[in-house]
């Protein structure tokens, strides 16, 4: 690799830190990859039931959430760009905005989930048990995958909040902001996974 200038000489290795983060993202992708395999297999087995299951979901809310997350990816990039120009306060503002979008996403998600609960469409619910097998699996996977994704949103928000505090206290600066970049990478991952969840569930009908 051409970028391998020797990390020994300097105590800090930003390239190495980013490499580590990318490798971590690979593990995250494979984590969801296992679920996508389960999804593909089950959808292949129950195509009609997945169609009906998708029709039960609220595509409008799903698309709204997509827009929210995509915008939050933009604000996190703006936070990094602000830091590169040395505007720490602006960077922090963008980070907190990103966290705000994360909260918005989770609030919308909560409304969605509680509507499903209200209609008895959750795992082991008596009503869901009366539906065809494929639909039970559809909702099992829906709650598992969006739930695991929601957990990642939550973790990402905490991470970005901690980073925003480090920006405030001057631990992250114009010349040393690899942690901010890594936080941004994680947030993009959360975004990218949602991009796949949207069509697989909400647009399945």
């Amino acid at each position, binding site marked *: 690799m051409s970028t391998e200038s020797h990390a020994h000489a300097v105590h800090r290795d930003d390239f190495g830190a980013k*490499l580590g983060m990318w490798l971590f993202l*690979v593990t*995250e*992708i*494979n*984590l969801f990859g*296992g679920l996508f395999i*389960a999804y593909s297999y089950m959808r292949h087995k129950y195509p009609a039931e997945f169609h009906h299951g998708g029709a039960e979901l609220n595509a409008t809310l799903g698309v709204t959430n997509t827009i929210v997350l995509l915008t939050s990816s933009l604000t996190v990039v703006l936070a990094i760009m602000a830091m590169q120009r040395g505007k720490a306060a602006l960077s922090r503002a963008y980070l907190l905005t990103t966290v705000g979008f994360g909260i918005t996403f989770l609030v919308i998600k909560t409304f969605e989930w509680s509507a499903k609960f209200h209609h008895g469409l959750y795992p082991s619910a008596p009503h869901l048990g009366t539906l065809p097998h494929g639909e039970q699996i559809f909702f*099992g996977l829906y709650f598992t995958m969006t739930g695991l994704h929601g957990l990642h949103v939550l973790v990402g928000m905490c991470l970005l909040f901690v980073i925003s505090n480090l920006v405030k206290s001057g631990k992250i600066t114009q010349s040393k902001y690899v942690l901010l970049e890594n936080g941004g990478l994680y947030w993009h991952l959360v975004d990218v996974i949602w991009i796949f969840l949207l069509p697989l569930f909400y647009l399945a009908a």
Partner: protein
Amino acid sequence: MSTSTAESNYLEYEGRHSGLLGWLLSTDHKRVAILYLVSMVTFFFAGVSAGFVMRLVQLTPFHKLITAQTYNALFTFHGVVMIFLFVIPGLNAVFGNFILPIIIGAKDVAFPRLNLASWYFFIGGALIAVTALFTGNGPPDTGWSFYAPFSIKSGTNVSLGVFAAFILGFSSMLTGINFVTTIHRLRAPGMTFFKMPLFPWALYATSWMQILATPVLAVTLVLVILERAFGIGVFDPAKGGDPVLYQHMFWMYSHPAVYIMILPAMGAISEILPTFSQRTIFGYKAIAGSSIAIAGFGSLVWAHHMFTSGMSAFGNILFSFLTMVVAVPSAIKVFNWIATLYKGSVNFQPPLLYALSFIFLFSIGGMTGVWQGALALDVHLHDTYFIVGHFHYVMFGGTGFAFFAALLYWFPKMFGKMYSNTAAYVAWFFLFIGFNGLYFTMLVLGMQGMPRRYYAHLPQYHLGHVIATVGSWVLILGLLLFFGSLLYAVFRGKKASANPWHGVTLEWTVPSPPPVENFDEIPEVSQGPYHFPSEVAL
């Protein structure tokens, strides 16, 4: 050559914390390695005890010792402990941590704090596993593979046991991330990938498998927990789920995991053989490349565990073929190791003896694996003692003996002490005889049709069980002697020189035990790793 004084070696160094805290909070890769060594050997003996009791049960015809349910819990405990707490971290966690940075000329791994955190994940997972034994409705009884649908129906404490394995996966994954970054970023100036010793090569391949495969297991285990907690249905046939899907997802990780266990062992063997034959390794690029090939093909053979689970004929044939293919890179290694000894000046020290035993036992393990890859034969051998015997030949005869060989090889470097050669030879005798008495008998029992995981056996299998049980006693005697003599050597052994085996890789250029920062000055590397001064150019 470093000129550091003895006071500054990593064992005696007093940092911000002293005593036990100086170990528990140290991010020095060498101390983390010793933490792993001590904890893993402890767990290893816990696993051995469970195995010992299981053998006793097969010896006593009236089963007064323990109940069938306890027997199920015992083999689950034995499997979980040995797999997740011993062979998966294995040589990777102990010698990878200790030797990797030194052998590539670095002062530490890329992320020292993450490295220590990995150990805490490891210990945390282990504690949860122990908790699972004593809480809830009894210890898990599913076997280490947690097969659905039993694992989602069993009333025992499966969720907590599965969660322990999930946490342990984190430890393994983070170590993988750490090592890949270390190898990319911290090699000494001049050490290109093809001038890197073979142990780091093997660790590199292993780390990639840890990164790629472990998350799939993690999410599979999450699904089992969710299934048990909320009934999501994915693996539950009553709700339209599919237990075979569980098997696929489980083996997608757990077969590559077998290579996570064996590859670092192969890497250590590739270090030991050149040193004790004072000859450059034969086929350096072939061995390095075969590590990558094993990682690649090893990820594509998982369903050979499932020939009798009801896959399509095409699927069976495909996975059978790929299973045959994955034997090729392993064979490449074995032939190159043997060729390395040819015309070398062989110095028959304990590490070499154990390394050669590895080659012998691993070859039996590997070849019995090919048998099971053959579809027709597998129907007969599936779920018998044959698989148990095969697996122990690979994991214990392979990884276990390589672990012992590596420990004997690097022990003088790690502790700065020499052990008794005589004790190591005598221990080898008991280990080797006991091992073959125990597991070769299992291969025969399996061929005769003895099913695995059975609490009782028919009278015609009794002689085999008696031989195997006696073998287990001899084996345990060897283990006690082996670790006992090493423990004695840690405190009472003679002082070791910096390079007792006349090795030429970088770890032998630093004092024994190494100073805290390994190198005063980062070495410059200009040639391949195995240039022995005594060797005549071929």
